[in-house]
């Protein structure tokens, strides 16, 4: 592994910001280009959110985002965070865990439980994996999602015991069916307060009589199987914490998490169900991360740091090699456009746009989350993607778009050639790299502007609309 210590190439910065953020604004690109690459990575990894619109303002003007009952309310609240945050990597990591620990409001009904889970990701998502798994196992949304309230001493329900091994931590092929049973026994008695009533209200899907009561973890010692268990070759009277400790020291766990990180931050891997049968695309990158995992005591941040500093991440082959997920496209576009510094009813439409493109936040299609990759693109979703980005980026009523247009004009310079105008536009949209053919097409478009010496705001906005409709804009 090598590290770049010199002032970094703007294209590499743009790549870093596409993956570790939602793309870079002009200011972000400029800032991160002025510091060393390693410093940039650390800044992104250690950022704390200070700019998100305060929750009290959101709750006052969107009263539905206070109880967060419905999906537009809970996912809209998350969208505010993603668009406004100055700790974007934290939100990217939240999306990462939401995809792996895929939990759905479609079953849980109440969005408050989902946002409580999201808050947990925000706090523990870059921490130690054993702590994250413990929080996940105690998380009421996960308990109800995988029916652990029905996992009783003497009558186990294997849903959670199976998924923590297969989908969350180790991957198929690294444990036995007996391990699943023993794991499930260890999690008996891990439930929520007022279990019966909460489960019934979830099933009946009713806010009556007094709205939803947010769930709270409860350990019921009477319902916990404290007997001896044999799990992954170890014997003892294991409880949930013990099982997690055993899981986290397995090399398979380190490899599984590393492969997920690579899949999300570097390049689309095969679908997860195929992982037991095919080796990782880049074993060297996996090793860098698994080493970091064990050296740091299971730190996700250390793994991600190692990945972002690795040659495999920085390699030009990795640039623009992943299809943007719908939410990445929506958030990235909105961060470019601005307009989210105060409450706006647009939030509901924007979150719906992500849904129309195929990603319904808080409603993954299954426990396996979204497949991603080429699956994001279909005839219908492509139209939605282009229409959304084009509508936003061409909206000169948005202060942010006017500023963007003016920055492009200033950067290109008075009397700039169409080619220069195109280059400035690509740069200010996040340093997008396009093929020569697309470049020529864009320049030809710009050459037809009425006033090529000083193109109007409308002209430049129309050029931006054309750029966000390109194939290249669909990639990160």
């Amino acid at each position, binding site marked *: 592994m090598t590290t770049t210590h010199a002032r970094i190439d703007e294209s590499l910065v743009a790549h870093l910001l596409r993956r570790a953020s939602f793309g870079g604004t002009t200011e972000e690109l400029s800032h991160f280009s002025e510091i060393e690459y390693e410093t940039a990575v650390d800044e992104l990894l250690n950022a704390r959110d200070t700019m998100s619109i305060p929750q009290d303002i959101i709750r006052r003007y969107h009263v539905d985002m206070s109880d967060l009952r419905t999906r537009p309310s809970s996912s809209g609240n998350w969208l505010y965070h993603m668009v406004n945050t100055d700790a974007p990597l934290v939100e990217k990591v939240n999306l990462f865990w939401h995809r792996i620990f895929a939990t759905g409001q479609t079953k849980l009904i109440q969005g408050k439980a989902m946002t409580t889970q999201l808050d947990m990701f925000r706090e523990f998502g870059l921490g130690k994996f054993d702590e994250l798994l413990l929080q996940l196992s105690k998380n009421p949304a996960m308990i109800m999602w995988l029916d652990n309230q029905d996992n009783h001493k003497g009558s186990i329900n294997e849903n959670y015991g199976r998924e923590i091994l297969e989908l969350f931590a180790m991957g198929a092929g690294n444990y036995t069916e007996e391990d699943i049973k023993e794991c499930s026994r260890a999690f008996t008695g891990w439930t929520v307060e007022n279990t019966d009533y909460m489960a019934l209200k979830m099933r009946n899907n009713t806010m009556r*009589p007094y709205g939803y009561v947010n769930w709270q973890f409860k350990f019921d010692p009477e319902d916990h199987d404290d007997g001896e268990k044999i799990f992954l070759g170890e014997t003892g009277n294991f409880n949930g914490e013990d099982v997690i400790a055993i899981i986290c020291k397995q090399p398979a766990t380190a490899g599984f998490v590393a492969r997920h990180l690579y899949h999300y931050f570097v390049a689309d891997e095969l679908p997860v169900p195929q992982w037991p049968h095919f080796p990782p695309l880049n074993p060297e990158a996996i090793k860098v991360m698994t080493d970091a995992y064990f050296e740091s005591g299971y730190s996700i941040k250390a793994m991600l740091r190692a990945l972002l500093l690795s040659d495999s991440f920085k390699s030009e082959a990795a640039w623009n090699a992943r299809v943007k997920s719908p939410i990445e496209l929506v958030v990235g576009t909105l961060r470019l456009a601005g307009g989210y510094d105060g409450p706006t009813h647009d939030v509901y439409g924007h979150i719906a746009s992500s849904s129309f493109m195929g990603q319904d936040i808080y409603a993954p299609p299954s426990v396996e989350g979204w497949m991603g990759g080429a699956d994001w693109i279909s005839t219908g979703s492509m139209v939605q993607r282009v229409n959304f980005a084009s509508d936003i980026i061409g909206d000169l009523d948005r202060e942010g778009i006017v500023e963007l247009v003016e920055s492009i004009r200033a950067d290109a310079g008075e009397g700039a050639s169409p080619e220069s105008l195109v280059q400035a536009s690509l740069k200010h949209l996040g340093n997008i790299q396009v093929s020569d053919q697309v470049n020529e097409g864009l320049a030809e478009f710009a050459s037809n502007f009425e006033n090529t010496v000083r193109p109007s705001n409308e002209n430049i906005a129309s050029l931006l609309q054309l750029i966000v409709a390109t194939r290249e804009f669909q990639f990160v």
Partner: protein
Amino acid sequence: MATQLKSKVNYVDTIGFGADVGGRGFHIPIDLSIRPDGRIFVANRSPAHRKGIRVGICDINHGWYHEFGSDGNGDGQFTGPTAITHGPDDRVYLADEELNRITVYDPDGEFISKWGEKGSDPGQISGPSGLKFTSRGDLLVVDHLNNRIQRMTADGGYISHFGTSGTGEGEFNLPWGIDTDSIDNIYVADWQNDRIQRFTSDGVFIDAHGSPGTGDHQFNRPSDVAVDQDGFIYVADWLNQRVQVFDGSWNFIKSLRGEATVSPWAQDYLNANADEAEARTRFNSLVEVDQGAPHEVSSKVESYLWDPTAIEIDPEGRLIITDSLRHRLQVYQRSNE
């Protein structure tokens, strides 16, 4: 004098039931107004289910009358209701912070007129969030995005205004609710300054009470204030999820966290849903919860107040609180010991 009395405030009753698509019940009740005959008019904000936006009329004895208004910008409709009050003419006035207008209804909820123009000039409004008629028949409008209180005629004519943006005396930061006392002193919930400000009837600053925090006398975004006939002051301490009670000299009396019980409307629902009623026999509404922000605690304890937005005093001196995220009203009574 009120300040010399020892008082206690006790829970009395719970009115209401969650009804997010209309009908008997409430959905995110944001404000209420009590007619002299005791009928309670409840404005429901309900943005996620637009059918829930309406005014429902009930009484203290759980009687249900009817509802009026709906989502939209036509005559009699509203999209962002914030405040409702009765005028001396027995008409109903409803403020809409999104449409920047006041709509006037007859006592049955039939549309009469609407007025209001968005802006910051005198007489224009931006985000009306509180309404209160003075004893002289003037309408005080909390013009919250302009950080001022405007005195208007009942048909929208401009009379005067006071207040500006800031944190000093007589300055506001996104004020919300408003009330007057028996001598027409004006009380304003200065929301983002975490305090209540008191003014003379002419808008001259008297005093301010409160500071940011969670202790007694401290507030976290107070949303409303009410004053009873003896001068006792009730503050909806919104993000602290409680109502604080003071005497007229700001001596602390009590903090109300919420004690809601199953209302008759809620019981009707449970009677019709045997499985829920049965499961509810094992339901602990006062479950001990992990420490956390009051908003989080309220989300887990059904009987607590959750986003109390408004307070009114009924003709019998009862305190009625909109427990907005629980879609009900909690009723308390102050009495002298």
